[in-house]
């Protein structure tokens, strides 16, 4: 089960509200390569992982991604704090205000709502771990685009922390992939039990 800690993993600060940037960074909340996608993808893939190391890595990274989702939510909250409908309109985000007021919603930077189509689970540990590594790279690239799209040094600091975590997660997934491949090479029973024999 999960337990909530009433704090963020890393501080989230903004120099001043910036609705225009909120509209962009929301993609890391509910976009294809965002933190919700990441968290659900990893926590859901745990059940078909063959080694303890893989089960632990997916559990722990999936859990950390939930904390990152919370950081992005806090960032969007601060970027839109006190913003008027006119400010949403000027930022090209009037639709967000009309539908959600100051509430958050899982969309990408183009307003497309989150979809389970963003994530996969094939039940094959190699396939799924390779997807996870690709996901970390896609998130890293998105954070680089976002860092380039803001001038706020405090926002850049928060995004750089999240960017760095993608790099570490990619590394850990790579190590997990290696160990699962090694395990599959040794385990005789992996492909036994039916038509799937290779």
């Amino acid at each position, binding site marked *: *089960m999960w*337990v909530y800690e009433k704090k963020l993993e890393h501080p989230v600060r903004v120099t001043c509200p910036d609705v225009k940037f909120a509209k962009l960074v929301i993609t890391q909340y509910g976009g294809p390569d965002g933190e919700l996608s990441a968290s659900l993808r990893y926590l859901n893939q*745990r*059940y078909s992982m063959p080694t*303890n*190391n893989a*089960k*632990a890595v997916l*559990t*722990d990274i999936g*859990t950390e991604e939930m904390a990152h989702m919370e950081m992005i939510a806090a960032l969007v909250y601060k970027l839109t704090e006190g913003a008027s409908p006119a400010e949403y309109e000027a930022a090209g985000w009037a639709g967000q205000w009309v539908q959600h007021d100051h509430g958050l919603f899982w969309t990408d930077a183009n307003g497309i709502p989150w979809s389970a189509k963003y994530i996969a689970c094939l039940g094959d540990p190699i396939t799924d771990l390779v997807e996870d590594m690709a996901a970390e790279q896609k998130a890293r690239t998105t954070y680089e685009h976002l860092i380039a799209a803001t001038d706020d040094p405090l926002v850049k600091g928060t995004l750089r922390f999240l960017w760095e975590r993608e790099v570490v997660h990619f590394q850990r997934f790579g190590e997990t992939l290696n160990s699962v491949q090694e395990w599959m090479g040794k385990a005789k029973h992996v492909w036994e039990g039916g038509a799937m024999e290779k």
Partner: protein
Amino acid sequence: MNVEKQMRLLRQIQEMEFVAIELNLYLDTHPCDQDGLNDYNCAIEKLDKLMSEYTAEYGSLLAQGFHGCKKWLWIEQPWPWEM
């Protein structure tokens, strides 16, 4: 390792944790209820004791807890869906 004993202790933790969760939710909407608060504090105290007992014997239930001095025992089976 005595798995039966471990499962028994885990069951006690689940029970006491559920008491704490119920009181937690109740207190969220009744923050000034003294009886509720006393019950909650009592449940937390019992839960802490059970958790310490479990951790000393089998390692922490939390990732950020004690998992051995010689080897990282966190990754060891059984995982919750395997119990």
